[in-house]
């Protein structure tokens, strides 16, 4: 199994508070992704990174920011959490070659009350 860890696994927070989710990999993969999963919407891309300090927006980036200061860590921040951001968040990693697959982390269940 690929070395990818998400933390925390579960979090409950209140509306308006900042929240940071962490994705850590031990595979030295270049590409890292943050997705959210909601019933009826599948997996939607929030942000992704193609290298240290190189990030780009996905389909649903409003209200989220990311940072990647090291190859192994990709942080997702909700500056001021809202109830609409209650979701399951998955991090994924991918190697450089075009035929390489995504490895997903175990997910973070976030509840914003």
């Amino acid at each position, binding site marked *: 199994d690929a070395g990818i860890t998400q933390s925390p696994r579960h979090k409950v927070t209140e509306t308006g508070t900042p929240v940071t989710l962490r994705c850590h990999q031990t595979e030295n993969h270049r*590409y890292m992704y943050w997705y959210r999963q909601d019933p009826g919407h599948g997996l939607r891309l929030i942000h992704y990174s193609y290298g240290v300090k190189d990030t780009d927006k996905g389909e649903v980036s409003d209200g989220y920011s990311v940072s990647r200061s090291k190859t192994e860590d990709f942080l997702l921040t909700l500056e001021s959490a809202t109830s609409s951001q209650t979701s399951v968040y998955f991090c994924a990693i991918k190697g450089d070659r075009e035929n390489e697959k995504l490895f997903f982390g175990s997910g973070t269940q976030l509840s914003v009350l």
Partner: protein
Amino acid sequence: QQPVQSPQAVILREGEDAVINCSSSKALYSVHWYRQKHGEAPIFLMILLKGGEQKGHDKISASFNEKKQQSSLYLTASQLSYSGTYFCGTLGGSNYKLTFGKGTLLTVNP
């Protein structure tokens, strides 16, 4: 923009076949297929690159027609273990922005 998957859900009896389709409104570089069990992370099934190739893994295979911007996943002689949600993910160009469809819920009953 998310690729479109069809059907949204399908129910089979063990041993029956199913086809799941994935289409995009933009040119595709490659198509990924993943399966997710309830409460778990998605797991990789296969990747199809430009060239119209067809790949297979056990009794699950897939095709990719880049001219039509479509891919199909074929599950033959389904087993109980095939139950789950299937996602296609598409890459347009070389920017590695992988976008997934909404998923197809496959239920295989005894």
